[in-house]
C-alpha cells in the first residue's frame, strides 16, 4: 500500500439530507484495495450514514459514488453486493425468530431445485462460525444468542460472502477483547488478499492497532483523511471532538465510603447466576467485571426484578422484596440495560415519549403534561448532549445518541442506586469523558453506582472497587490501586483460585459468599 493504486470505492462530494436536515456535507474520500480504513468521529457525525451510502442501503442526496473510478448508482443493496460490497450494520440485521443457519444464508440459500440443501448449509454455517471461533448452534434461533454471538454471526455472514469491500459499522462494540482479536486476525487475512476493509469504532486503541488509513469526520464533514502512521490516539480524539481533551477519567475522591445502602445475599438467578452477595456503599462506584456470558447482566437484572430471582436484598438497612421492576424503582434502584435496541428504547417513538417513559408514574399523576415533557427533553438534550433532530423517530438517531438518550431516560427516575450495564457502549470518546464525569458527580452527591462493563480500562479508571464474576459466581474483588488488568483477568479466567498463583501486581481477595468492602486506606 501507499503506492498509487486506483481506489476501489470512493465518495466524491456526497451530501445527504433527511427532510430538511442535512447530515453529510460534500464528503469525499477513497477506499483502496488491501487497506484497512478506519472512519471515526463523534456520535452523530455521520459515519453510519456514510457507510450505508457506500453499501447501497441508502441513496446519496447528491454527489457521486465511484467504483473503480466509474460513477455508479446502487438501486438496492443487492446491486452493491453483486459488486462485492458487503456491510455489517451497527444495529443487528438479523431476524430474531429464525435460526443461525437461516440468517446466515438468508436470500442466498443453497438450493437443489426448489428445495433447500439443509445439511450442507448447516455444515457451511458451522464452518463460517468456526472461522471466527463462534460456537453457536446453527439450529438455534437467533433470539437465544448473546449479543456478542449475534455480532460474530453477522461478521461470519459477511466474511462468507467473499467481499471485495467489507464495511463494518462498530463491529467491536459488543465484543470482548478476545473476540476483537479474532476479528482482527480475519481482517488482516482479508487485507493480505487485497480486500478493502472499512470500519468504525469508538475504541481508538483498536483503530491504532489495525488501521492503515484514518478518516475523521466531524458534523458531517471530513476533517482529516490520511495514513494512520504517526497519528496518536490522543490526536485522533482531539481531531474528532475539535477541542482539547483532558484526562478521560475523573479523579477518584480520597474520602471514606459512606454507609452500606445495598446489601445482597445469596442471590440466585436460575440458569445464570448463583450465590451472588455483595455490599454497596453510599457514594461508591462499584464495577462488575467478567467475561461475556459470566452472568453479570442476568445477576443485575435479577436484582432489579427484571427476571425471576431469589435471595435476600436490603436497601438502606431494610429488607426488601423485589418482584418486578417497579418495586426496585420504588426503592430508588434503577437499571440501565446493555441492549438499547430491544430493551431500552421504543425505536418507533419520539425522544419525548422515550425520555419520560420510565419516570412517568412518579412524575405525572394520571395525566401527562406535554409542556413539562418538552422541558424534560430540553434538559436531557442539554445535559447529555444528545444530537439529532428533535422530532425524529428514535430508531433514526445515531447509535451513540440513542445510548445517551437511554441514560437520560433512566436518570429521570432519580435513582439512589444506579446499576448501569455497559453504559458507554457505542459512545464517542468525548462523550465518554462526560459520562464518566457525570457518574462520578452522581456518586459525589451520594448516589451509589454499579458499572457492569467489558471494557477493562473503564473499570480501572472509574471504579472504587471491582467485583469479578466467572460462570455465574463472584470469584473475587479488587479495590483501589489493586484494580489492574491482570488482576481482573485472573479472577475472570479462574486462575486466581489456584494455589500459588497469587503473584503479580494485583492483590486478590478470594471469593466468599459475601464480600465486605474492606477497602485499604
Amino acid at each position, binding site marked *: 500500500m501507499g503506492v498509487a493504486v486506483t481506489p476501489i470505492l470512493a465518495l466524491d462530494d456526497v451530501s445527504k439530507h433527511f427532510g430538511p436536515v442535512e447530515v453529510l456535507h460534500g464528503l469525499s474520500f477513497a477506499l483502496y484495495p488491501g487497506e484497512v480504513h478506519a472512519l471515526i468521529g463523534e456520535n452523530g457525525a455521520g459515519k453510519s450514514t456514510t457507510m450505508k451510502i457506500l453499501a447501497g442501503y441508502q441513496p446519496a442526496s447528491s454527489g457521486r459514488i465511484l467504483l473503480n473510478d466509474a460513477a455508479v448508482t446502487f438501486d438496492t443493496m443487492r446491486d452493491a453486493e453483486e459488486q462485492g460490497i458487503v456491510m455489517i450494520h451497527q444495529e443487528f440485521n438479523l431476524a430474531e425468530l429464525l435460526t443461525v443457519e437461516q440468517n446466515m444464508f438468508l436470500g442466498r440459500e443453497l438450493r437443489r431445485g426448489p428445495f433447500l440443501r439443509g445439511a450442507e448449509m448447516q455444515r457451511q454455517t458451522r464452518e463460517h462460525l468456526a472461522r471466527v471461533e463462534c460456537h453457536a448452534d446453527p439450529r438455534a434461533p437467533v433470539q437465544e444468542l448473546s449479543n456478542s454471538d449475534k455480532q460474530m454471526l453477522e461478521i461470519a455472514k459477511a466474511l462468507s460472502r467473499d467481499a471485495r469491500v467489507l464495511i463494518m459499522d462498530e463491529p467491536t462494540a459488543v465484543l470482548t477483547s478476545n473476540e476483537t482479536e479474532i476479528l482482527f486476525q480475519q481482517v488482516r487475512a482479508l487485507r493480505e488478499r487485497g480486500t478493502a476493509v472499512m470500519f468504525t469504532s469508538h475504541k481508538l486503541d483498536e483503530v491504532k492497532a489495525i488501521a492503515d488509513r484514518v478518516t475523521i469526520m466531524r458534523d458531517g464533514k471530513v476533517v482529516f483523511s490520511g495514513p494512520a502512521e504517526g497519528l496518536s490516539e490522543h490526536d485522533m480524539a482531539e481531531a474528532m471532538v475539535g477541542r482539547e481533551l483532558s484526562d478521560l477519567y475523573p479523579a477518584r475522591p480520597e474520602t471514606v465510603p459512606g454507609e452500606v445502602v445495598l446489601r445482597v445475599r445469596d442471590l440466585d438467578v436460575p440458569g445464570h447466576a448463583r450465590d451472588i452477595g455483595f455490599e454497596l456503599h453510599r457514594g461508591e462506584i462499584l464495577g462488575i467485571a467478567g467475561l461475556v456470558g459470566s452472568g453479570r447482566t442476568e445477576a443485575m437484572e435479577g436484582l432489579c426484578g*427484571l427476571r425471576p430471582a431469589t435471595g435476600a436484598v436490603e436497601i438502606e438497612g431494610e429488607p426488601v422484596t423485589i418482584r*418486578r*421492576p*417497579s418495586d*426496585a*424503582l420504588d426503592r430508588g434502584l434503577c*437499571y440501565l*440495560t446493555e441492549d438499547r435496541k*430491544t*430493551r*431500552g*428504547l*421504543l*425505536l*418507533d*417513538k419520539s425522544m419525548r*415519549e422515550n425520555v419520560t*417513559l*420510565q419516570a*412517568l*408514574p412518579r412524575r*405525572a*399523576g*394520571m*395525566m*401527562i403534561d*406535554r409542556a413539562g415533557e418538552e422541558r424534560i427533553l430540553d434538559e436531557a438534550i442539554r445535559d447529555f448532549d444528545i444530537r439529532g433532530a428533535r422530532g425524529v423517530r428514535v430508531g433514526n438517531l445515531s447509535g451513540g445518541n440513542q445510548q445517551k438518550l437511554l441514560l437520560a*431516560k433512566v436518570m429521570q*427516575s432519580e435513582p439512589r442506586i444506579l446499576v448501569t450495564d455497559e453504559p458507554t457502549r457505542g459512545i464517542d470518546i468525548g462523550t465518554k469523558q462526560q459520562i464518566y464525569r457525570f457518574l462520578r458527580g452522581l456518586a459525589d452527591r451520594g448516589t451509589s453506582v454499579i458499572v457492569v462493563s467489558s471494557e477493562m480500562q473503564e473499570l480501572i479508571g472509574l471504579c472504587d472497587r471491582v467485583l469479578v464474576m466467572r460462570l455465574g459466581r463472584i470469584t473475587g474483588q479488587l479495590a483501589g490501586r489493586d484494580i489492574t488488568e491482570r488482576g481482573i483477568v485472573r479472577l475472570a479466567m479462574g486462575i486466581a483460585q489456584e494455589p500459588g498463583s497469587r503473584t503479580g501486581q494485583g492483590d486478590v481477595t478470594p471469593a466468599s459468599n459475601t464480600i465486605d468492602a474492606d477497602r485499604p486506606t
Partner: protein
Amino acid sequence: MTVIGPVVALIALIVIGAMLNPNFLGYANLTNVLSRSAFIGIIAVGMTFVITAGGLDLSVGSMAAFIAGLMIVVMNAALPVLGVGLPVILLGVATALIAGLIAGLINGLLITKVGIEAFIVTLGTMGIYRSLVTWMADGGTLSLDFGLRTFYRPVYYDGILGISWPIIVFALCVIVGEIFLSRGVFGRHVAATGANAEVAHYSSVNTTRVRLATYVLLGLLVGVATIMYVPRLGSASQTTGILWELEAIAAVIIGGTYLKGGFGRVWGTVIGVLILSLIENILNLTDHVSPYLNGAVQGVMIILAVILQRGAKTGK
C-alpha cells in the same frame, strides 16, 4: 401520522349521501345514525385500547348479547320485588357493568396470566357467550317485561337538548378515552406495551397489568354499550351483536390504529365507526343496488375508504 386521511373518507361519504337523498342530512336521519352507531362506537373505543396494547378481542359481540340477556333475566326476576321504577333499572345497570368487568377480566387473565393467544381465547369465549345466551333464552328470545320496557325506553330514545342519550354517552366515552389514550399515563403505557413489550417491561411498566386493564376496560365498555342497547329493543337473542367484533375492529383500523399495536387514536376510531354506519345508511337511502349486493358495496366502500385515507397520507 396522517390526521386528514379518515376525515377525507368520511366527508366523501357525507357528500355522496347528501347527493343521493335530501333527507340524509336531516336531523332525524343523523340522530338515527349516530344513536345506533353508539353501541359499536362505545365498544370500539375500548377495542382501540386493546389493539393499541397489541391485543385483540373477538368476543365483544357475543359478550354484548350475553350481558344483554343477563340484564333482562335479572331485571325480570327483580321486577316482582322492586316494581317498575328506577331501582330495577339501576340493578340492571349494575348487572351489566359487573358482568362486563368479569367477562373482560376472564379474557384478560387467560391472555396475560395463562399466556394463550388473544385470538384463541376470545374466539373461545365468543362461542361460550353466544351459547350461553342461546341457552338462557332456550333457543328463543329473552324479553324485558313490557311495562319495564316502556319505562326504560327513554334511555335510548330521549336525550337532552335534542341530543339522544346514546349519542351523549358515546361522546363522553370518546372524549374520556381520547384524553386518556393520548394524554394519560395509562395511554402512554398502553402504547409502549404494544410497541415493544420488552422495552416497556424494562422501563418498569407493568405490562401484564396494562394488558389486563385494557381487556377489563373493554369489558366494562361492552357493559355500557349494552345498557344503551337493551332499552332500544328490550330483548336479547342469539343473533344479538353478531359480527360486532369485526365491525369494531374494522372501525379501529380504518381510524388509523395499528393492528400490530403501538399506536392508537380514539378519535380516528370514531371516524371509522361513522364511516361504517354511513355506508349502511346510504345503502338504505337508494334503491340503485339489489339488496343481495349490499354486502359487496359495503366491502368495496370499506376498501375504498381506506385507500382514500392512505392516498391522502402519501399526498401530504
